[in-house]
């Protein structure tokens, strides 16, 4: 099936909860109401004509400059039986982002959703194990958000070298850190 007939089929089942269909894109996508995504994916997998049994990829994208600012969760679905693919998207506000989990339909969503939580701060409601996955458990913040600023300290360690460390390094002391993001003072080092 091509993308528009896939859309027709899903639209016929869910009506208003299918919000938008971007047909002109190279890989067309369907925007679905956030609260309906678990049902939509379950339908996509169970329906014998769609048979989208494989969740190829689940990714989150941050769009702070859109109006209103939003985050998207993107589901790339694929059917091993019919070899067709479709992209589903849901929108969520940037603050207090919540999306229902699709873990019950696709087992692999468990780790993908943990990664999206870890790096974007999107909480997946109903997830069995919503913990960080790549970053340390005591990390603060979600680095792939566009408003991310690197912290100065992590557990008492300097993340970026300070002015003082730069000066000591220029004095010949080997600190084993770098690269320096402070401009080193133009200091005269006497030759021996």
């Amino acid at each position, binding site marked *: 099936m091509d993308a528009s007939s896939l859309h027709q089929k899903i639209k016929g089942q869910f009506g208003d909860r299918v919000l938008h269909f971007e047909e002109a894109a190279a890989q067309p996508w369907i925007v679905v109401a956030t609260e309906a995504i678990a049902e939509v994916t379950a339908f996509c997998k169970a329906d014998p004509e769609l048979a989208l049994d494989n969740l*190829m990829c689940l990714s989150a994208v941050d769009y702070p400059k859109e109006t209103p600012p939003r985050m998207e969760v993107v589901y790339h679905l694929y059917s091993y039986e019919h070899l067709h693919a479709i992209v589903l998207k849901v929108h969520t506000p940037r603050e207090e982002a919540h999306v229902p989990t699709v873990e019950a339909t696709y087992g692999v969503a468990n780790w993908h959703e943990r990664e999206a939580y870890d790096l974007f701060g999107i909480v997946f409601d109903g997830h069995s194990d919503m913990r960080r996955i790549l970053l340390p458990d005591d990390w603060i913040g979600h680095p792939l958000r566009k408003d991310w600023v690197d912290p100065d300290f992590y557990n008492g360690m300097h993340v970026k070298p300070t002015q003082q460390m730069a000066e000591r390094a220029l004095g010949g002391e080997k600190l084993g850190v770098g690269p320096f993001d402070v401009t080193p003072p133009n200091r005269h080092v006497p030759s021996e």
Partner: protein
Amino acid sequence: MSSQLHQPYGWRIEDLDTDEMILNMGPQHPSTHGVLRIELRTDGEVVRAARPHIGYLHRCFEKHAESVDYPGVIPYTDRMDYVASMGNSLGYALAVEKLMGIEVSPYVQTIRVIMAELQRIASHCIAVGTYGMDIGAFTPFLHLLRDRETILDLFEWTCGARLLYNYNWVGGLSHDVPEGFVRAGRQFLREFDRVTWPELMELLIKNKIFIKRTAGIGVCSPELAVSYDLTGPNLRGSGPPRDLRKDVPYCGYENYEFEVPVGQGRYGPLGSCFDRNWVRALEMKESAKILHQALERLEKMEKADVREKVPKRVKPAKGEVYGRSEAPRGQLGYYIVADGTGVNPYRVKVKSPCFTAMSIFHVLARGMMIADIIALIGSLDVVLGEIDR
């Protein structure tokens, strides 16, 4: 909110039964193929539950990718799956080319196929060899590394690097193959077909001890494999003959004749550790078949400029693409979003086959013996650099 969600240290002592014990495997365990920590909840020798902890090698690939331009991402992709760098950069180059609508010449495509298949053989040499070593067979590992060395020499000769190549560029290649490459490739294949592969089958794959040790453990049904998005040899070990090179051909793979080996379940239930490894061993032979055809094709072709289509400035229009390719460890997917304003990607997400293979681990490990955990990790063939990215 977040403090409520954090449960950092896994199981608490008071939750355990009297006979149960927590065993930490890794992060410095030699058989975990990298820095992977697995928390095992054991009852004697039996694993009641397992929890993999990843992230020790996290190098913020996706964050880095947003701060460099499109061609600048390629060296970073090399460092994800450092055992099969050619496959990573090929997947990325194909995705960006799809985004920009670049078609590369047949000459470049043929070289890309040759490099990808040589890399597949090299990667499976490591996978199968170290798997044997995990289980106690040391000799096949040395034999396979010897042959991998030949492939690395070919790569070094072509592009100057042994492991991290930066070879597949957006729209082309960094270097043409050197004079005499076809001859050297054929010499390698002759050795591989006549010596290495039969030797591998006799020494390891048909070895009675090896079969008894691996057949029948870690059984994964096809439905479970698809649900957890196992791809590549892991999926084919469970039965479905799904290979992107056949299903959605790229780089002209439709012009080559080769089989897609699948697990047979010959020595136990279908989808066991043995089947996954068996598929890898047979795939090496199929790659050699493709290489014979590709080298012949390359020999007859006229030399062309491999950088002909390389754009001066890679600046795709606003859009997004999900490009995937069959890397040695399975389907490697890149989801690239371009906002059309800058020369940097807006977002690059990598669907790594090892990541999804590791996510099924806790399901397969339940009820296993501790010693079999080693056999299971090896059969999934994970590379931690790609899981953590």
